[in-house]
C-alpha cells in the first residue's frame, strides 16, 4: 500500500489481484453480472484517490465503497434492469459427478432455489441490497460496513436487520409466485 501511495502502479497491480474477486462480487450485486468495466474503472479511480486514503485504515471497505458508487453510476447510465447471472452446470460448484453426488433433480432444485434468491435480491431497494451485498457477497464485518456505508456501527446493525426482513419477505413472495 505504501508503495502504491507513492505512485508505484505495479504495487497497485498487486492490490488489484488481491481484491479483484470481492470487487467483482460487489459490482455484480449493485450493477449486475456484466460489470467488467465497472471493476476496472473502480480500481483506476481508487488509484487516483489514494491520496485521500488514510494510512492505517482498512483498505477493503474503502475500495468497495468506490466500487459500489461506480457500479451505481454505471447502472443508472445504462438504464438496464439489474440481473444476476448464475453459473450453469455446477449447481453445487462441483466438477463431474460421483456416486454420492446429488441427483439431477437435486441439482435442478438447488439451481431453482438460487434463482429465486437472486430474483428476490434484485427486487430489493438499492439501499437494502447494498447492505446485504457488503455483508454476504463481500463478507465485510459490521465495522467494515460502517466504513463502506459511511455510517455508525449501530446504524449498520439496524440497516442490516431491516434488509434481512425485506429479503425474507421477498423470498416468501417468490415462493408464493413460484
Amino acid at each position, binding site marked *: 500500500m505504501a508503495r502504491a501511495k507513492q505512485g508505484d502502479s505495479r504495487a497497485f497491480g498487486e492490490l488489484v489481484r488481491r481484491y479483484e474477486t470481492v470487487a467483482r462480487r460487489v459490482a455484480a450485486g449493485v450493477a449486475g*453480472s456484466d460489470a467488467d468495466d465497472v471493476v476496472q474503472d473502480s480500481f*483506476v479511480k481508487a488509484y487516483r484517490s489514494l491520496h485521500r486514503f488514510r494510512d492505517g485504515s482498512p483498505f477493503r471497505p474503502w475500495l468497495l465503497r468506490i466500487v459500489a458508487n461506480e457500479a451505481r453510476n454505471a447502472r443508472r447510465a445504462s438504464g438496464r434492469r439489474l440481473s444476476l447471472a448464475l*453459473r450453469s452446470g455446477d449447481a453445487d460448484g462441483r466438477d463431474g459427478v460421483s456416486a454420492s453426488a446429488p441427483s439431477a433433480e437435486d441439482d435442478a432444485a438447488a439451481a431453482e432455489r438460487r434463482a429465486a434468491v437472486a430474483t428476490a435480491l434484485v427486487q430489493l431497494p438499492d439501499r437494502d441490497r447494498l447492505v446485504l451485498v457488503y455483508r454476504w457477497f463481500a463478507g465485510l464485518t459490521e465495522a467494515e460496513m460502517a466504513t463502506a456505508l459511511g455510517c455508525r456501527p449501530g446504524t449498520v446493525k439496524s440497516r442490516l436487520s431491516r434488509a434481512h426482513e425485506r429479503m425474507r419477505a421477498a423470498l416468501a413472495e417468490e415462493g408464493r409466485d413460484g
Partner: protein
Amino acid sequence: MDDVGRVIAELADHLDLRDDPTLADRVVAAIDVDRVDAPAVRGRRRRTFAAALALAFAGLGVTAGPAIADWLRVRIGGVEVERAERPEAPGDLGVGLDLGRRVHLGDGDGGFTFAPRTLSREHGRPTFWSNDVDGVAVFSSVYAASRELPATRAGVGALVQQFDASLEDPALMRKVIGANVVIEPIAVNGRAGVWIEGEHAIAMRHRDGDVRFAPGRLAANAVVWQDGDTTYRLESALDRDAAIALAETLRY
C-alpha cells in the same frame, strides 16, 4: 449464520463471475497511460525510458520523442492498449482561456470534492486546469482539435469543465444569458441539463445557498448538466446531438 445470510452467501458462490488474469495489467496500463502517477515516480520512469530509448535508438540515429516513449511504455506495461502514437498535449493548450492554473492529475487533484472526469483516451491527452470562480471550485480539461473534435473559435477541440456547485434552474439562466442565445432542455445519461448555442454564463447554486455565475465564454456551443452535486459544461464545435453523445462518454 442467519438463514437469509446463508442463502445469499451461497448465491454469491454461484454467481457467474470469474477473475480476469489480465485485469491487473489493464489497470496498471490505464494508470500509466493516463500519467496519474505521483510526480516522483513519473520522473523516475521518464528517466528510465529516456535511458532505454537512448540505448535502443542510438545505433539507428533516431531521436526518441515522447510519443514513441509512450508507445513503448504501454507495451512494456504488459498490455497493448493502443498502437497509435499519442503526442503529448501541447503545453500551451488552454493557455489564454482564463482557466486558472495548470495542474496534473495525481498532484492532489486540486483539492476538489469531486472526482475529475475525462473523455476517452482516443481524444488525446488534455491539459488540466484548476480555478476558483467566486468561491466555486472549477476543474477544466482542454482537448486539442482533431478530426473528431473540430476546432472551436478558441482553437481547441473541446473544453470540459466541472463546477463544485448545482446547476440553477434553466429559467434563471435564460434571464442572464440574453434573448439571442438558444437554450434547450436536454438529458445527459438521464441527467437534466441544457443545450446552449451562443455566448453564455452558467447560473449555479453554491453549497452556501447563493447563486453564482460561471463567467461567460465566447462559445462554442455547450452542453451543461448536473450529476450529483457537480455541474458539467462541455464546449465544442459539435452539433447538439453529437455534443450530447460526447458528454455521455465522460468517465472517471
